[in-house]
């Protein structure tokens, strides 16, 4: 589904990613874990083509993404739920969801998908006419993920969906991710809540200062002494 090879990227003279390789197969859920500033967000941004890689190739669903803009990548079936949710704060919940279905192909499916998103997140249905900026943090995350699902993506990118949420809500977010997975969506998720994310994904990569330092099945990484010591604190 997604194949990233030899990718480096950065901002100005600063290099954030060095020779990163990663793959996600259809139906899989894969996590990228790592500390603050490791380059996780930069990795998702380069995958969705919000920024251009300096070297390397990105292949998505059989398409080479070289030269494509983020809007074209979205049209190919990738949905990027960005860091800090980035809802359109002055628009209502439903208008935010409508923006997720902006592309002509998605517009045709708007009502079925809307119903589906409301089924997945009943809380959003109750608050459909509420201004998105006034939602609670957890509700905003539901809305951001819902907006991503409205395009009917083949691959869903999630950037730290649990960031900035109270511990109880964090658990709910991972339950949401689990539910989305079980619906058959392919997911690439970036997280710092390592222990929890490793319980809902199949495989994971460890990113440190722009380089992939380890990778493997989620259960292996969860059991790995190095990772437990460095990131889980046990």
């Amino acid at each position, binding site marked *: 589904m997604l194949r990233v090879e030899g990718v480096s990227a950065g901002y100005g003279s600063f290099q954030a990613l060095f020779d990163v390789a990663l793959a996600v197969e259809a139906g899989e859920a894969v996590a990228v874990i790592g500390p603050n500033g490791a380059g996780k967000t930069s990795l998702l941004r380069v995958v969705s083509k919000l920024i251009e890689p300096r070297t390397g190739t990105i292949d998505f669903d059989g398409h080479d993404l070289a030269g494509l803009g983020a809007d074209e990548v979205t*049209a190919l079936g990738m949905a990027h739920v960005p860091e800090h949710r980035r809802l359109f704060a002055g*628009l209502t919940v439903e208008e935010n969801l409508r923006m997720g279905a902006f592309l002509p192909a998605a*517009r045709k499916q708007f009502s079925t998908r809307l119903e589906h998103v409301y089924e997945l997140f009943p809380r959003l249905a109750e608050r459909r006419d509420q201004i998105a900026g006034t939602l609670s943090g957890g509700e905003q995350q539901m809305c951001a993920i819902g907006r991503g699902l409205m395009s009917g993506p083949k691959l869903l990118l999630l950037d730290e969906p649990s960031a900035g949420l109270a511990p109880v809500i964090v658990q709910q977010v991972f339950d949401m991710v689990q539910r989305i997975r079980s619906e058959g969506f392919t997911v690439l998720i970036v997280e710092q809540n390592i222990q929890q994310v490793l319980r809902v994904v199949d495989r994971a990569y460890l990113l440190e200062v722009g380089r992939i330092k380890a990778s493997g099945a989620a259960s292996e990484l969860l059991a790995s002494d190095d990772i437990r010591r460095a990131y889980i604190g046990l």
Partner: protein
Amino acid sequence: MIDIFLLEAILNGILLGGVLALLALGLNIVFGVIDVVWICYAELIMFGMYGNYVLHKDLGWPLLLAFAVCVVVVAVLGVLLHWLVIRPVLGGAPINQLLVTGGVLTFMQALATLVFGIEFRNLGISMPSLELGEIFLSQSRIWACGVSLVAVALLWLFLKKTYLGTAIRAISQDREIMPLMGVKPGRIYLITSAIGGGLAGLAACLLVLQYDVHPAIGLTFGPITFMVCVMGGLGNLLGGFLAAFIFAQFIQVGGFYFELEWGYVFAFCFFIAMMFWRPQGLLGKRA
């Protein structure tokens, strides 16, 4: 009993408010979406007024056809303004954007002087006043206000009910992530410029019924439009709408108690006081 002339001034204020609301809308929507102030906005209106003059008076086209063509032509002019002048400096310092549209203002004034000379021109249409009891209202003002309000309502429906309209509102809140919705921001900018230009063209059609056109006519509408927009919160469509009616009441009612010029003085003083009290405008949030 309320003074009949005061009532007339208030009604005239409402009629003026409708037109100011339309004027403000075009400038506001462009600023809200593209973050650029069209300093030459009133000169687009001037262009539309001359267009009407040429088509209707010189070429003898039916008035409504001339109106329709002018709206379209000024909309295209808005697109060209964005494509040729603003797009190249979009990433630059805001002052550059002001300077280039200011340059277009001077250019259009000079061009109008060159082509039409400095004399005042009008369509020579005079509509009778409407008599409501003892109150006299200008029919062209009633038409202008009515058409403005219909245009504002249609635009509001468009912004509220369509995908494109929602995208136009969304982009003013977070332009960076628009591509993640599959939206090309550049295309939205062009569409918005067409809407801004089209509104200027429509305003030209309504104003040419009431005012003579001359190369400096922009000075009559430009400053007032900017003030209404800033007073409502630059880029805030609803704020601009409310501010237009408040501003118009100051002009008309102030003008009723003193003289018309004093109405403008009051309105400008009110504007300055507002800037101390709420520098962000009535409904604005930007600092």
